[in-house]
């Protein structure tokens, strides 16, 4: 850029057309980028202003514990002759009506809008535990192969292509896959083979029958595991690659086997990174709706997964009986269908009226859900940054 000769001050700005165009273009680009930022912030702000009052309160303990620790229930709104509205649940309704007597005017009921969202939160947590457990196992093993063992070749290319394609499969197709594979055909041990069983292998004391797990946490968790598998593989591989080659060479030079090298010189340095990036996988798994629609989720359930009607423990039962029951009770958690937060929000969005009572449940759930998912994602980013600072090679 040549300064115009007429200008006395060589440091003064250049007023030529080029400069103006340059600034204008720069501003146009800047405005374009900030539009996205602003829209994001606006949506966040909208959810925050409508949802935060539901999840928080001005009094100690500042968190609306009722909303976070109760199961969803029907909200009863009782109106008296003066037009006052009293909110209550099914147990309180009769007492209030009796108290109002003649003053009672009308009662409105709004499904799912009373109580809290503990059931969906627990359900989502269970789904995430199963899915991340499965996906971490498969994903990290796959990443170790890709980063430590694989040589260039047809197989490696196919694996990479498959991972790329898997990442692009629509989530609802995963739902169909989960329905076909886990709900309807996965193998399980049964004493009586169901009619729909594809294949039954008698094992003497029991039968291994391919008849599916029905809609339950396990089916949903496995389906979600494959949804997040590409995320986990890619992230883990990056972490493994980030461990300097020198570590491996040193270890090998000392005579360690390949596995010892991986076990003692690579994994310890990659694990924190793998775990933090897997938090991103958790956020993704918690947020997906379509894959769990047909495999695990339920619109309404009035019990937590472990609150089953089990026979009470015998008074003088041996330790063994106790142990057996605890185990079956624990495993029973994973064979139940559950409410899950994303599906609950779908139900709230599509199946209940839009009025001020329902809105509270809707925005409250959305807010809590978003805070959970966003804090997971943010902590992943933050931890990664700190790790990067710590392990600077």
């Amino acid at each position, binding site marked *: 850029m040549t300064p115009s000769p007429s200008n006395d001050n060589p440091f003064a700005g250049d007023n030529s057309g080029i400069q103006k165009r340059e600034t204008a273009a720069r501003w146009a680009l800047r405005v374009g980028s900030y539009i996205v930022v602003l829209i994001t912030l606006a949506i966040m702000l909208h959810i925050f202003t409508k949802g935060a009052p539901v999840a928080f309160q001005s009094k100690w303990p500042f968190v609306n514990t009722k909303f976070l620790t109760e199961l969803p*229930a*029907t909200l009863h709104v009782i109106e008296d002759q003066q037009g006052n509205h009293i909110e209550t649940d*099914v*147990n309180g309704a009769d007492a209030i009506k009796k108290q109002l007597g003649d003053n009672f005017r009308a*009662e409105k*009921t709004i*499904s799912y809008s009373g109580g809290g969202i503990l059931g969906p939160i627990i359900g989502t947590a269970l789904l995430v535990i199963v899915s991340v457990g499965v996906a971490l196992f498969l994903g990290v093993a796959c990443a170790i192969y890709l980063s430590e063992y694989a040589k260039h070749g047809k197989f490696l290319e196919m694996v990479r292509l498959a991972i790329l394609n898997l990442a692009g499969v629509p989530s609802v197709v995963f739902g169909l896959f989960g329905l076909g594979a886990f709900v309807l055909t996965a193998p399980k041990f049964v004493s009586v083979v169901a009619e729909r069983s594809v294949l039954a292998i008698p094992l003497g004391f029991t039968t291994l029958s391919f008849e599916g797990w*029905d809609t339950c946490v396990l089916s949903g968790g496995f389906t979600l595991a494959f949804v997040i598998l590409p995320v986990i593989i890619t992230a883990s591989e990056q972490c493994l690659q980030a461990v300097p080659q020198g570590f491996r060479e040193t270890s090998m030079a000392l005579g360690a086997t390949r596995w010892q090298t991986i076990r003692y010189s690579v994994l310890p340095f990659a694990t924190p990174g793998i775990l933090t990036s897997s938090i991103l996988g958790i956020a993704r798994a918690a947020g997906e709706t379509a894959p769990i629609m047909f495999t695990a989720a*339920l*619109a*309404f*359930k*009035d*019990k937590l997964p472990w*609150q*089953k*009607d*089990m*026979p*009470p423990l*015998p*008074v*003088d039962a041996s330790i063994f009986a106790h142990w057996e029951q605890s185990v079956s009770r624990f495993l029973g958690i994973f064979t139940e*269908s559950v409410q899950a937060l994303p599906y609950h929000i779908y139900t709230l969005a*599509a*199946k*209940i*009226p*839009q*009025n001020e009572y329902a809105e509270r449940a809707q925005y409250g759930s959305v807010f809590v859900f978003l805070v959970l998912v966003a804090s997971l994602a943010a902590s992943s980013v933050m931890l990664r940054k700190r790790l990067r600072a710590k392990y600077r090679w």
Partner: protein
Amino acid sequence: MKTAILTLAATFAAAISLQAQTTLRIRGSDTLGAKLVPQLAEAFKKQGGKVSFDIAAEGSSTAFTNLASGTAEIGMSSRKVKADERTLCRSKGVSLTEYEVAWDMISVVVNKNNPVSDLSKKQLLQIFAGDIKDWSEVGGTPGPISVYTRNTSSGTYKDFIGLAMKGREYGKNSQKMAGNEQIAAEVGSNPNGIGYVGYAYSGAKGLKVASIAGSLPNPATVKSYPLSRPTFLYTSGEPAGTTKEFIDFCLSPAGDAIVSKAGFVPLSIAK
């Protein structure tokens, strides 16, 4: 020693009786399952029924698919079982027992700012079949009609075809909504909208119930209103235990009170 054995036996018996009252899985109609049945269930539990409920309401068709595959104890349906569904159940070894629980009136709703408040039966048919496309054809303010219907598995969807449309199909321009409330919300926000909902849902914000051939849905006129229909609960075989108790509760006077509170017409009035 003897006492020990006795207590063991007693606890065992108690355990078995406890196990017998596990969960009632109820599947089917959204008309019944979004409002009436959860309230019946809550009341049933309150008056001492020891049972937990597991309710999913996606449409009447799901009642029969679930009963047939044994994944539900009770099916809710806003229409009578179809012949092919009965056949399906029979082929899976399930014979259906039918209980009429309440009467419902399908209310035709328009936006509250819509000047049209009465439709003849023919006009109603033509609007939902897509023959009448503009409000000016039925004496309203000119504007294209937006038709909102339920999703295809809904019993209301099917009943409406039978009651109001003489078996004709819905027009192509109809929008399929997931539940009664969603229809109410859309019609309430669209001045040119028309839809139908169960009577219990017709009081929503921004709605006006249109009279059909001069008759408005009202518990007193349930017999003469052209779009009245019974709603049903189905069980597989003769119900026993908790299932039977629950059904009996639904048909008792206490159940009737809840039915009318939830916006349905109890059998005592409809009969």
